[in-house]
Protein backbone atom coordinates (compact mmCIF):
# COMPACT_ATOMS: atom_id res chain seq x y z
CA UNK A 1 0.00 0.00 0.00
CA UNK A 2 1.23 3.49 -0.88
CA UNK A 3 2.23 5.45 2.20
CA UNK A 4 1.02 9.06 2.21
CA UNK A 5 3.48 11.97 2.37
CA UNK A 6 4.70 12.94 5.84
CA UNK A 7 2.69 15.59 7.64
CA UNK A 8 4.31 18.70 9.14
CA UNK A 9 5.05 18.27 12.85
CA UNK A 10 2.18 20.51 14.00
CA UNK A 11 -0.27 18.64 11.73
CA UNK A 12 1.08 15.31 12.97
CA UNK A 13 0.40 16.43 16.55
CA UNK A 14 -3.29 16.70 15.66
CA UNK A 15 -3.28 13.28 13.96
CA UNK A 16 -1.61 11.81 17.07
CA UNK A 17 -4.26 13.40 19.30
CA UNK A 18 -6.98 11.93 17.07
CA UNK A 19 -5.46 8.51 17.63
CA UNK A 20 -5.21 9.15 21.38
CA UNK A 21 -8.92 9.97 21.42
CA UNK A 22 -9.55 6.43 20.17
CA UNK A 23 -10.56 7.22 16.57
CA UNK A 24 -11.46 4.02 14.72
CA UNK A 25 -11.47 3.50 10.92
CA UNK A 26 -14.83 4.96 9.84
CA UNK A 27 -15.08 2.56 6.90
CA UNK A 28 -15.41 -0.40 9.30
CA UNK A 29 -18.35 1.12 11.24
CA UNK A 30 -22.08 1.54 10.82
CA UNK A 31 -23.20 5.15 10.23
CA UNK A 32 -24.61 5.32 13.78
CA UNK A 33 -21.29 4.28 15.31
CA UNK A 34 -19.29 6.45 12.92
CA UNK A 35 -21.28 9.49 14.17
CA UNK A 36 -20.04 8.77 17.71
CA UNK A 37 -16.37 8.84 16.71
CA UNK A 38 -14.08 11.70 17.79
CA UNK A 39 -13.54 14.18 14.96
CA UNK A 40 -10.37 15.86 13.71
CA UNK A 41 -11.78 19.06 15.25
CA UNK A 42 -11.93 17.27 18.63
CA UNK A 43 -8.27 16.33 18.15
CA UNK A 44 -7.32 19.95 17.40
CA UNK A 45 -9.07 21.03 20.61
CA UNK A 46 -7.09 18.42 22.56
CA UNK A 47 -3.85 19.90 21.20
CA UNK A 48 -5.07 23.38 22.14
CA UNK A 49 -5.75 22.29 25.72
CA UNK A 50 -2.35 20.58 25.93
CA UNK A 51 -0.75 23.86 24.88
CA UNK A 52 -2.68 25.80 27.51
CA UNK A 53 -5.02 27.49 25.04
CA UNK A 54 -8.73 28.00 25.69
CA UNK A 55 -11.10 25.77 23.68
CA UNK A 56 -14.16 27.87 24.60
CA UNK A 57 -16.01 29.32 21.60
CA UNK A 58 -14.82 32.85 20.81
CA UNK A 59 -17.28 35.18 22.59
CA UNK A 60 -16.71 37.82 19.89
CA UNK A 61 -19.31 35.88 17.90
CA UNK A 62 -22.79 34.88 19.11
CA UNK A 63 -24.97 32.14 17.63
CA UNK A 64 -28.61 31.19 17.33
CA UNK A 65 -30.25 28.18 15.68
CA UNK A 66 -33.14 28.88 13.32
CA UNK A 67 -35.18 26.37 11.26
CA UNK A 68 -35.43 26.79 7.47
CA UNK A 69 -37.57 23.67 6.87
CA UNK A 70 -39.86 21.18 8.61
CA UNK A 71 -37.30 18.39 9.15
CA UNK A 72 -35.38 18.66 12.47
CA UNK A 73 -32.14 18.63 10.43
CA UNK A 74 -33.27 21.61 8.36
CA UNK A 75 -31.96 24.41 10.54
CA UNK A 76 -29.09 26.86 10.39
CA UNK A 77 -26.76 28.19 13.04
CA UNK A 78 -26.45 31.93 12.51
CA UNK A 79 -23.12 33.39 13.66
CA UNK A 80 -23.20 37.13 14.33
CA UNK A 81 -20.17 39.24 15.25
CA UNK A 82 -21.01 40.74 18.64
CA UNK A 83 -19.03 43.94 18.06
CA UNK A 84 -21.19 45.27 15.23
CA UNK A 85 -24.60 44.55 16.69
CA UNK A 86 -26.72 47.65 16.46
CA UNK A 87 -24.20 49.44 14.27
CA UNK A 88 -26.85 50.10 11.64
CA UNK A 89 -24.82 49.08 8.62
CA UNK A 90 -25.80 45.91 6.84
CA UNK A 91 -23.23 43.16 7.18
CA UNK A 92 -22.14 40.85 4.38
CA UNK A 93 -23.37 37.26 4.64
CA UNK A 94 -21.59 33.94 4.17
CA UNK A 95 -23.65 30.78 3.69
CA UNK A 96 -21.49 27.91 4.94
CA UNK A 97 -21.94 24.14 4.47
CA UNK A 98 -20.18 21.67 6.79
CA UNK A 99 -18.42 18.46 5.78
CA UNK A 100 -18.73 14.81 6.82
CA UNK A 101 -19.32 13.01 3.53
CA UNK A 102 -23.08 13.76 3.80
CA UNK A 103 -23.29 10.95 6.39
CA UNK A 104 -21.45 12.00 9.58
CA UNK A 105 -20.67 15.27 11.44
CA UNK A 106 -22.85 18.36 11.87
CA UNK A 107 -22.78 22.10 12.55
CA UNK A 108 -21.31 21.37 16.00
CA UNK A 109 -18.33 19.49 14.53
CA UNK A 110 -17.60 22.30 12.08
CA UNK A 111 -17.75 25.30 14.42
CA UNK A 112 -14.23 26.63 13.86
CA UNK A 113 -14.51 27.91 10.28
CA UNK A 114 -17.88 29.72 10.45
CA UNK A 115 -16.90 31.35 13.76
CA UNK A 116 -13.56 32.46 12.32
CA UNK A 117 -15.17 33.83 9.14
CA UNK A 118 -17.80 35.76 11.13
CA UNK A 119 -15.12 37.42 13.24
CA UNK A 120 -12.53 38.08 10.54
CA UNK A 121 -14.98 39.28 7.88
CA UNK A 122 -17.32 41.04 10.28
CA UNK A 123 -20.03 39.08 8.51
CA UNK A 124 -23.10 37.06 9.39
CA UNK A 125 -22.26 33.42 8.74
CA UNK A 126 -25.13 31.01 8.26
CA UNK A 127 -23.93 27.45 8.92
CA UNK A 128 -26.48 25.16 7.28
CA UNK A 129 -27.44 21.81 8.78
CA UNK A 130 -28.99 19.43 6.26
CA UNK A 131 -30.42 15.91 6.10
CA UNK A 132 -27.80 13.14 6.08
CA UNK A 133 -27.52 9.76 4.38
CA UNK A 134 -28.48 6.98 4.67
CA UNK A 135 -31.66 8.31 6.31
CA UNK A 136 -32.01 10.87 3.49
CA UNK A 137 -30.00 10.01 0.39
CA UNK A 138 -28.70 12.19 -2.45
CA UNK A 139 -29.99 14.67 -3.62
CA UNK A 140 -31.56 15.57 -0.23
CA UNK A 141 -28.36 17.39 0.80
CA UNK A 142 -28.24 19.42 -2.41
CA UNK A 143 -31.95 20.26 -2.14
CA UNK A 144 -31.48 21.42 1.45
CA UNK A 145 -28.40 23.46 0.52
CA UNK A 146 -30.38 25.21 -2.24
CA UNK A 147 -33.44 25.74 -0.02
CA UNK A 148 -31.23 27.25 2.68
CA UNK A 149 -29.65 29.61 0.13
CA UNK A 150 -33.10 30.79 -1.01
CA UNK A 151 -34.09 31.22 2.64
CA UNK A 152 -30.99 33.32 3.36
CA UNK A 153 -31.68 35.55 0.34
CA UNK A 154 -35.20 36.14 1.65
CA UNK A 155 -34.27 36.66 5.31
CA UNK A 156 -30.75 38.09 5.47
CA UNK A 157 -32.00 41.68 5.73
CA UNK A 158 -34.04 40.84 8.84
CA UNK A 159 -30.84 39.65 10.56
CA UNK A 160 -28.97 42.83 9.67
CA UNK A 161 -27.37 41.24 6.60
CA UNK A 162 -26.98 42.60 3.09
CA UNK A 163 -28.65 40.20 0.62
CA UNK A 164 -26.64 41.71 -2.23
CA UNK A 165 -23.35 40.70 -0.58
CA UNK A 166 -23.60 36.97 -0.09
CA UNK A 167 -20.79 34.46 -0.47
CA UNK A 168 -20.96 30.67 -0.43
CA UNK A 169 -18.44 28.57 1.49
CA UNK A 170 -18.02 24.97 2.53
CA UNK A 171 -15.62 22.22 3.46
CA UNK A 172 -15.33 18.73 1.98
CA UNK A 173 -18.87 17.51 1.17
CA UNK A 174 -19.87 21.08 2.04
CA UNK A 175 -17.25 22.41 -0.39
CA UNK A 176 -19.14 20.51 -3.04
CA UNK A 177 -22.46 22.02 -1.85
CA UNK A 178 -21.02 25.55 -2.08
CA UNK A 179 -20.17 25.11 -5.78
CA UNK A 180 -23.33 23.09 -6.54
CA UNK A 181 -25.45 25.82 -4.94
CA UNK A 182 -23.72 28.50 -7.04
CA UNK A 183 -24.68 26.43 -10.10
CA UNK A 184 -28.25 26.15 -8.76
CA UNK A 185 -28.43 29.93 -8.24
CA UNK A 186 -27.26 30.52 -11.83
CA UNK A 187 -29.76 28.01 -13.27
CA UNK A 188 -32.66 29.37 -11.23
CA UNK A 189 -31.81 33.04 -11.79
CA UNK A 190 -31.36 33.74 -8.08
CA UNK A 191 -29.12 36.53 -6.81
CA UNK A 192 -25.63 35.21 -7.53
CA UNK A 193 -23.18 34.84 -4.67
CA UNK A 194 -20.30 37.33 -5.01
CA UNK A 195 -17.73 34.63 -4.24
CA UNK A 196 -17.42 30.90 -3.61
CA UNK A 197 -14.92 29.42 -1.15
CA UNK A 198 -14.65 25.68 -1.67
CA UNK A 199 -12.32 23.87 0.72
CA UNK A 200 -11.25 20.37 -0.40
CA UNK A 201 -14.54 19.67 -2.18
CA UNK A 202 -15.88 16.33 -3.40
CA UNK A 203 -15.84 17.21 -7.11
CA UNK A 204 -14.63 14.36 -9.31
CA UNK A 205 -15.95 10.77 -9.39
CA UNK A 206 -13.08 9.33 -11.42
CA UNK A 207 -11.35 6.40 -9.74
CA UNK A 208 -8.07 7.30 -11.50
CA UNK A 209 -7.24 10.54 -9.70
CA UNK A 210 -3.63 10.71 -8.44
CA UNK A 211 -4.65 11.71 -4.90
CA UNK A 212 -6.93 8.66 -4.56
CA UNK A 213 -3.75 6.57 -4.65
CA UNK A 214 -0.94 8.78 -3.32
CA UNK A 215 -3.10 9.79 -0.33
CA UNK A 216 -5.39 6.76 -0.40
CA UNK A 217 -4.08 5.67 2.98
CA UNK A 218 -3.96 9.14 4.57
CA UNK A 219 -5.60 10.25 7.82
CA UNK A 220 -8.12 11.46 8.87
CA UNK A 221 -9.62 10.80 5.40
CA UNK A 222 -8.72 7.81 3.23
CA UNK A 223 -10.03 6.46 -0.06
CA UNK A 224 -12.03 3.60 1.56
CA UNK A 225 -13.92 6.24 3.58
CA UNK A 226 -14.86 8.04 0.36
CA UNK A 227 -16.35 4.80 -0.94
CA UNK A 228 -18.09 4.20 2.41
CA UNK A 229 -19.67 7.67 2.26
CA UNK A 230 -20.76 7.07 -1.35
CA UNK A 231 -22.35 3.79 -0.37
CA UNK A 232 -24.50 5.48 2.27
CA UNK A 233 -25.43 8.76 0.57
CA UNK A 234 -26.21 7.58 -2.95
CA UNK A 235 -29.30 5.77 -4.21
CA UNK A 236 -27.61 3.98 -7.09
CA UNK A 237 -24.49 3.67 -9.20
CA UNK A 238 -25.55 6.50 -11.48
CA UNK A 239 -25.66 9.10 -8.67
CA UNK A 240 -21.90 9.42 -8.55
CA UNK A 241 -21.89 10.65 -12.16
CA UNK A 242 -24.61 13.23 -11.43
CA UNK A 243 -23.07 16.66 -12.18
CA UNK A 244 -24.03 17.82 -8.69
CA UNK A 245 -21.54 15.28 -7.27
CA UNK A 246 -19.16 14.98 -10.22
CA UNK A 247 -18.80 18.76 -10.48
CA UNK A 248 -16.06 18.54 -13.12
CA UNK A 249 -18.76 17.18 -15.47
CA UNK A 250 -21.22 20.03 -14.75
CA UNK A 251 -21.87 23.11 -16.87
CA UNK A 252 -19.44 25.44 -15.10
CA UNK A 253 -19.88 28.55 -17.24
CA UNK A 254 -20.72 31.92 -15.69
CA UNK A 255 -20.02 31.01 -12.09
CA UNK A 256 -18.90 33.55 -9.49
CA UNK A 257 -15.18 34.07 -8.75
CA UNK A 258 -14.09 31.01 -6.80
CA UNK A 259 -11.31 30.12 -4.37
CA UNK A 260 -10.43 26.46 -3.93
CA UNK A 261 -8.29 25.32 -1.00
CA UNK A 262 -6.66 21.90 -0.93
CA UNK A 263 -4.43 19.89 1.37
CA UNK A 264 -1.48 17.97 -0.02
CA UNK A 265 -2.13 14.81 2.00
CA UNK A 266 -5.77 14.25 1.09
CA UNK A 267 -7.47 11.76 -1.25
CA UNK A 268 -9.72 14.67 -2.36
CA UNK A 269 -6.76 16.87 -3.39
CA UNK A 270 -7.15 16.02 -7.08
CA UNK A 271 -10.87 16.84 -6.93
CA UNK A 272 -10.15 20.48 -6.12
CA UNK A 273 -7.23 20.67 -8.54
CA UNK A 274 -9.23 19.23 -11.46
CA UNK A 275 -12.26 21.38 -10.59
CA UNK A 276 -10.08 24.50 -10.79
CA UNK A 277 -8.86 23.44 -14.25
CA UNK A 278 -12.42 22.70 -15.43
CA UNK A 279 -13.76 26.02 -14.11
CA UNK A 280 -10.95 27.99 -15.75
CA UNK A 281 -11.64 26.18 -19.00
CA UNK A 282 -15.29 27.24 -18.67
CA UNK A 283 -14.15 30.86 -18.38
CA UNK A 284 -14.53 31.37 -14.62
CA UNK A 285 -12.14 33.30 -12.41
CA UNK A 286 -10.59 30.68 -10.11
CA UNK A 287 -7.76 30.69 -7.59
CA UNK A 288 -6.63 27.34 -6.27
CA UNK A 289 -3.89 26.53 -3.78
CA UNK A 290 -2.68 23.21 -2.42
CA UNK A 291 -1.09 23.63 1.01
CA UNK A 292 1.89 21.35 1.78
CA UNK A 293 2.33 19.15 4.85
CA UNK A 294 -1.32 19.24 5.84
CA UNK A 295 -4.21 16.77 5.62
CA UNK A 296 -7.95 16.82 5.06
CA UNK A 297 -9.78 18.71 7.84
CA UNK A 298 -6.78 21.02 8.45
CA UNK A 299 -8.78 24.14 7.61
CA UNK A 300 -9.98 25.86 10.79
CA UNK A 301 -7.03 24.54 12.84
CA UNK A 302 -5.05 27.78 12.41
CA UNK A 303 -4.47 28.17 16.15
CA UNK A 304 -2.34 25.02 16.24
CA UNK A 305 -1.36 24.23 12.61
CA UNK A 306 0.73 26.76 10.66
CA UNK A 307 -0.44 25.50 7.25
CA UNK A 308 -4.04 26.01 8.37
CA UNK A 309 -3.29 29.55 9.52
CA UNK A 310 -1.81 30.30 6.10
CA UNK A 311 -4.80 28.78 4.28
CA UNK A 312 -7.25 30.72 6.43
CA UNK A 313 -5.45 34.00 5.70
CA UNK A 314 -5.50 33.19 1.98
CA UNK A 315 -9.22 32.35 1.97
CA UNK A 316 -10.22 35.29 4.18
CA UNK A 317 -8.34 37.72 1.94
CA UNK A 318 -10.28 36.46 -1.09
CA UNK A 319 -13.63 36.70 0.71
CA UNK A 320 -12.79 40.16 2.09
CA UNK A 321 -12.04 41.44 -1.37
CA UNK A 322 -15.35 40.12 -2.69
CA UNK A 323 -17.56 41.09 0.26
CA UNK A 324 -16.14 44.35 1.53
CA UNK A 325 -15.60 46.38 -1.63
Amino acid at each position, binding site marked *: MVQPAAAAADMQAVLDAHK*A*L*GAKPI*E*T*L*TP*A*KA*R*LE*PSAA*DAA*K*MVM*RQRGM*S*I*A*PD*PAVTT*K*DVPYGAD*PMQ*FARIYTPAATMGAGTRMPVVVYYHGGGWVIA*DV*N*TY*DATPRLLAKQLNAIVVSVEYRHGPEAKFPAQHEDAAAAYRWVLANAASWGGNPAKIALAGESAGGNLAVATAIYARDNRLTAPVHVLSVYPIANSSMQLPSRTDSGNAKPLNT*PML*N*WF*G*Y*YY*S*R*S*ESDKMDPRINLVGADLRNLPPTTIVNAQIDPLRSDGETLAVAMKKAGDSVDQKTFPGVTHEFFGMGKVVRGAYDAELYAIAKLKKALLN
Partner: protein
Amino acid sequence: MKILAYALPLAVVISAPAFAQAMTSAEYVAAAGAGDMYEIQSSQAVLQTTQDPKIKSFAQMMIQDHTKSTAKLKAAAAVSKVKPSPMLTPAQTEMLAQLKAENGPARDQAYIAQQKQAHQQALTIHQSYAEGGKAVPLKMVATNVVPVVKHHIEMLKTM
Protein backbone atom coordinates in the same frame (compact mmCIF):
# COMPACT_ATOMS: atom_id res chain seq x y z
CA MET B 1 -29.49 -6.18 -3.86
CA LYS B 2 -28.90 -3.45 -6.37
CA ILE B 3 -27.14 -1.16 -3.95
CA LEU B 4 -24.60 -3.83 -3.08
CA ALA B 5 -23.67 -4.27 -6.75
CA TYR B 6 -22.88 -0.57 -6.91
CA ALA B 7 -20.17 -0.91 -4.32
CA LEU B 8 -18.76 -4.05 -5.89
CA PRO B 9 -15.06 -3.18 -5.89
CA LEU B 10 -15.30 -2.58 -2.16
CA ALA B 11 -18.10 -4.99 -1.34
CA VAL B 12 -15.85 -6.96 0.98
CA VAL B 13 -15.14 -3.89 3.05
CA ILE B 14 -18.56 -2.31 3.02
CA SER B 15 -21.18 -5.03 2.91
CA ALA B 16 -20.56 -6.39 6.40
CA PRO B 17 -21.16 -3.18 8.40
CA ALA B 18 -24.00 -2.18 6.10
CA PHE B 19 -26.08 -5.13 7.21
CA ALA B 20 -24.74 -5.47 10.70
CA GLN B 21 -26.90 -4.48 13.64
CA ALA B 22 -26.42 -0.77 14.31
CA MET B 23 -25.48 -1.44 17.93
CA THR B 24 -25.42 -4.58 20.11
CA SER B 25 -27.14 -4.53 23.52
CA ALA B 26 -23.79 -4.46 25.31
CA GLU B 27 -22.61 -1.58 23.11
CA TYR B 28 -25.83 0.31 23.77
CA VAL B 29 -25.60 -0.11 27.54
CA ALA B 30 -21.94 0.98 27.53
CA ALA B 31 -22.49 3.99 25.24
CA ALA B 32 -25.69 5.19 26.93
CA GLY B 33 -24.17 4.72 30.41
CA ALA B 34 -21.02 6.61 29.44
CA GLY B 35 -23.11 9.39 27.91
CA ASP B 36 -25.05 9.78 31.18
CA MET B 37 -21.81 9.81 33.18
CA TYR B 38 -20.35 12.52 30.99
CA GLU B 39 -23.58 14.57 31.23
CA ILE B 40 -23.65 14.39 35.02
CA GLN B 41 -19.94 15.13 35.52
CA SER B 42 -19.81 18.01 33.03
CA SER B 43 -22.93 19.55 34.57
CA GLN B 44 -21.38 19.26 38.05
CA ALA B 45 -18.27 20.98 36.72
CA VAL B 46 -20.18 23.95 35.31
CA LEU B 47 -22.29 24.26 38.46
CA GLN B 48 -19.09 24.88 40.44
CA THR B 49 -18.38 28.12 38.58
CA THR B 50 -21.38 29.41 36.64
CA GLN B 51 -23.08 32.68 37.55
CA ASP B 52 -25.68 32.30 34.79
CA PRO B 53 -29.09 31.28 36.18
CA LYS B 54 -30.14 29.78 32.82
CA ILE B 55 -27.07 27.53 32.69
CA LYS B 56 -27.49 26.68 36.38
CA SER B 57 -31.04 25.44 35.90
CA PHE B 58 -30.14 23.60 32.67
CA ALA B 59 -27.21 21.83 34.37
CA GLN B 60 -29.40 20.85 37.33
CA MET B 61 -31.97 19.46 34.92
CA MET B 62 -29.25 17.47 33.12
CA ILE B 63 -28.10 15.89 36.39
CA GLN B 64 -31.68 15.00 37.28
CA ASP B 65 -32.70 13.60 33.87
CA HIS B 66 -29.49 11.66 33.26
CA THR B 67 -29.53 10.21 36.79
CA LYS B 68 -33.03 8.95 36.02
CA SER B 69 -32.06 7.44 32.66
CA THR B 70 -29.06 5.73 34.28
CA ALA B 71 -31.35 4.07 36.83
CA LYS B 72 -33.73 2.88 34.11
CA LEU B 73 -30.82 1.67 31.99
CA LYS B 74 -29.32 -0.31 34.89
CA ALA B 75 -32.66 -1.98 35.67
CA ALA B 76 -33.30 -2.91 32.03
CA ALA B 77 -29.72 -4.12 31.61
CA ALA B 78 -30.14 -6.44 34.60
CA VAL B 79 -33.36 -7.92 33.15
CA SER B 80 -31.66 -8.27 29.75
CA LYS B 81 -28.63 -9.97 31.32
CA VAL B 82 -26.24 -7.28 30.06
CA LYS B 83 -23.57 -6.25 32.53
CA PRO B 84 -23.26 -2.48 32.68
CA SER B 85 -19.68 -1.31 33.02
CA PRO B 86 -19.94 2.36 32.17
CA MET B 87 -16.63 4.02 31.44
CA LEU B 88 -16.05 7.41 29.90
CA THR B 89 -14.59 7.23 26.38
CA PRO B 90 -11.21 8.91 25.84
CA ALA B 91 -13.08 11.68 23.97
CA GLN B 92 -15.43 12.26 26.93
CA THR B 93 -12.52 12.25 29.40
CA GLU B 94 -10.83 14.88 27.21
CA MET B 95 -14.01 16.99 27.06
CA LEU B 96 -14.21 17.02 30.86
CA ALA B 97 -10.53 18.01 31.07
CA GLN B 98 -11.20 20.85 28.61
CA LEU B 99 -14.17 22.04 30.59
CA LYS B 100 -12.23 22.07 33.86
CA ALA B 101 -9.38 23.98 32.17
CA GLU B 102 -11.77 26.88 31.45
CA ASN B 103 -12.86 29.47 34.00
CA GLY B 104 -15.76 31.89 34.39
CA PRO B 105 -17.91 32.66 31.33
CA ALA B 106 -15.50 30.67 29.10
CA ARG B 107 -16.48 27.52 31.00
CA ASP B 108 -20.16 28.36 30.48
CA GLN B 109 -19.61 28.74 26.74
CA ALA B 110 -17.52 25.57 26.50
CA TYR B 111 -20.21 23.70 28.44
CA ILE B 112 -22.99 24.77 26.07
CA ALA B 113 -20.88 23.89 22.99
CA GLN B 114 -20.09 20.46 24.47
CA GLN B 115 -23.74 19.86 25.42
CA LYS B 116 -24.85 20.48 21.84
CA GLN B 117 -22.35 17.95 20.53
CA ALA B 118 -22.97 15.39 23.29
CA HIS B 119 -26.74 15.50 22.89
CA GLN B 120 -26.55 14.86 19.15
CA GLN B 121 -24.46 11.81 19.98
CA ALA B 122 -26.89 10.73 22.69
CA LEU B 123 -29.74 11.01 20.20
CA THR B 124 -27.80 8.81 17.76
CA ILE B 125 -27.20 6.18 20.48
CA HIS B 126 -30.78 5.96 21.75
CA GLN B 127 -32.43 6.36 18.35
CA SER B 128 -30.39 3.63 16.69
CA TYR B 129 -30.98 1.16 19.53
CA ALA B 130 -34.68 2.08 19.68
CA GLU B 131 -34.92 1.22 15.98
CA GLY B 132 -32.61 -1.76 15.67
CA GLY B 133 -31.98 -3.10 19.18
CA LYS B 134 -32.59 -6.72 20.18
CA ALA B 135 -33.40 -6.70 23.92
CA VAL B 136 -36.99 -5.51 24.52
CA PRO B 137 -36.49 -3.92 27.99
CA LEU B 138 -33.48 -1.93 26.74
CA LYS B 139 -35.38 -0.97 23.61
CA MET B 140 -38.11 0.46 25.83
CA VAL B 141 -35.55 2.54 27.71
CA ALA B 142 -34.08 3.83 24.44
CA THR B 143 -37.54 4.68 23.09
CA ASN B 144 -38.41 6.57 26.28
CA VAL B 145 -35.13 8.48 26.38
CA VAL B 146 -35.34 9.72 22.76
CA PRO B 147 -37.98 12.43 23.43
CA VAL B 148 -36.10 13.55 26.56
CA VAL B 149 -32.89 14.02 24.55
CA LYS B 150 -34.85 15.78 21.79
CA HIS B 151 -36.27 18.16 24.39
CA HIS B 152 -32.75 18.92 25.66
CA ILE B 153 -31.64 19.60 22.07
CA GLU B 154 -34.52 22.03 21.57
CA MET B 155 -33.58 23.82 24.80
CA LEU B 156 -29.94 24.01 23.67
CA LYS B 157 -30.99 25.65 20.40
CA THR B 158 -32.00 28.69 22.46
CA MET B 159 -28.72 28.82 24.40
